[in-house]
């Protein structure tokens, strides 16, 4: 199956900064990709380029279309939730459903109404009367009823309480995602998406510094907890990162043989957030 997104030499320059610096990557179908990076690393610019919302140099192919020239056609296949607060405040629930049902050829009204029935939203309610969590429920109900091939989520759960956040990802996994769909998500709440991701991309200063699927990451990166007396030996092996817990040292290694590390202490798979912190060391320095 051909990849959903192919980017080759993608660059985007703003007046006094580089948002994307000659980036190339491929995203196959049926994946959930986490695009993770510090503030200002170029995540949103990359997503905007994919959505045809911004100009750029380089090659970009999304579902066989050029997002700069064929944006209207592309949006039949692509959905996005940009942020929780972007539904217009005057819009009523019924108006939102009517409108999307009539302009989107792949929208399933019954499905949307079934999703809405599970919430406290009523047809006459306006967005301005809703809490942030309810707005995102409405947006998600609209988006999940669209049979799109690519869904892009840019900080979809920013500012939501933990109940809404959990429910958001659970709905996505249970009622939306399948092998024909692809989801790209950016978020700072890495812990929450960690278990649903199939692929991970780290972006820093406009460059992709890590692009791998979760299995490969589990093989490549290993965390080992070492007693104080063996810390020097571990340090000699050039770990990515070191931190102290209860008098022991935890080292994060990239591409070191698992058996070697097992001999030094207790090994485990690093969490994405630890990996992220280690990779992004010195970003703001």
């Amino acid at each position: 199956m051909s990849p959903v997104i192919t980017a080759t030499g993608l660059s985007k320059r703003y007046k006094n900064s580089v948002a994307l610096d000659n980036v190339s990557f491929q995203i196959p179908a049926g994946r959930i990709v986490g695009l993770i990076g510090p503030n200002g690393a170029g995540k949103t610019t990359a997503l905007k380029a994919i959505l045809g919302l911004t100009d750029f140099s380089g090659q970009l192919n999304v579902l066989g279309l050029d997002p700069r020239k064929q944006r209207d056609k592309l949006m039949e296949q692509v959905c996005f939730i940009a942020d929780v607060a972007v539904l217009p405040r005057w819009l009523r629930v019924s108006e939102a459903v009517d409108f999307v049902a009539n302009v989107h050829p792949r929208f399933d009204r019954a499905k949307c109404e079934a999703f809405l029935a599970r919430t406290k939203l009523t047809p006459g309610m306006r967005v301005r009367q809703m809490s942030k969590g309810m707005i995102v429920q409405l947006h998600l109900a609209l988006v999940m009823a669209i049979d799109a091939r690519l869904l892009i989520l840019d900080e979809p759960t920013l500012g939501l309480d933990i109940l809404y956040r959990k429910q958001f990802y659970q709905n996505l996994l249970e009622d939306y995602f399948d092998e024909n769909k692809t989801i790209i998500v950016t978020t700072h709440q890495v812990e929450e998406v960690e278990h649903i991701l199939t692929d991970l991309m780290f972006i820093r200063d406009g460059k992709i510094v890590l692009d791998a699927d979760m299995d490969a990451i589990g093989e490549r990166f290993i965390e080992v907890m070492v007693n104080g007396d063996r810390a020097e030996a571990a340090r000699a092996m050039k770990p990515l990162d070191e931190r102290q817990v209860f008098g022991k040292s935890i080292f994060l290694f990239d591409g070191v043989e698992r058996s070697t590390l097992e001999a030094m202490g207790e090994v485990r798979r690093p969490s994405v957030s630890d990996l992220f912190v280690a990779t992004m060391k010195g970003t703001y320095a």
Partner: protein
Amino acid sequence: MKTFYWLVKREFWEHRGGFLWTPVIVGGLSLLLTLMSLVTGEVLGRRNNLFRFDGGDSIGLNGHLDASMLDNVGGVLDCVLFGVIALMLGIMAIVVFFYCLGSLYNDRRDRSILFWKSLPMSDGQTVLAKVASATLVAPVIACSVGVITGLLMMVMVACVASIHGLNLWQLLLHVHPLQVIASVIALIPLYVIWALPTAGWLMLCSAWSRSMPFLWALLLPPASLLIVWWFGLLGLFKVGAGWFWGNVVVRLLMSLVPGGWLRDVPALGNGLHANTPDALLDFLGVAQNYATLVSPDLWIGAIAGVAMIAAATWLRRWRDDS
């Protein structure tokens, strides 16, 4: 086409207050004021014994009116209808002015543009739907509400007149509400062409400015007028500041006011000296108005308007600041 219809409907949903409720409220208020003044007239008239109720009437409406006087009464009633519609359109012009200024700016400011842009519709359709809402939907609603209000007002005045013995059926032959309504409807296409430069200019400012489109839209034309005037002082420009004011500044900012084209109809001066209401209405008639079609001013303005709308569409597509 279906998408376009729903885009226009979306504009109506968002601006129901300005497009529909404003004229309805103004219409209700003017009916109330009419009723109050008619009642005042009746009460004061009776108190001061102006009317006699022994079959005759000191004002003597019936029997003393010949056909030409009835014509005048009918003409006055026609003018009432026309005046109410004009009032509605004047208020609509203010509403639409601010609608255009916000049309491509407000959703950028609150970032809801990202929601609209996540749906499969082109920016061209979006902008055109907004132009249609401003130049077509708003005037049609304002005219409809104006017609209803005006007709009710005519009925009220006619009823009071009939109390004083005026024969309603006879009067009916001398009022021409259908003619007034037809000419108002016929003028709407002309209005669309005439309004394009202002709609285009305001929407261009709305699509372009990062903040305060109102200030840009209002300040740039007078500022350029100042420059033209200054160049004129130096003798560098052939065109005078007066010409620039009338043909650029006023056209960019004031063309949403209906009937603005009449300044180019030389016969209008005579119309204002008309001594019967009918004659005045004739001058406001369709043929007089459409005489404007021969003036290049109208068409140059329309072309400039279309160009500015195209520029606004381009900005809508590529402006990247949300």
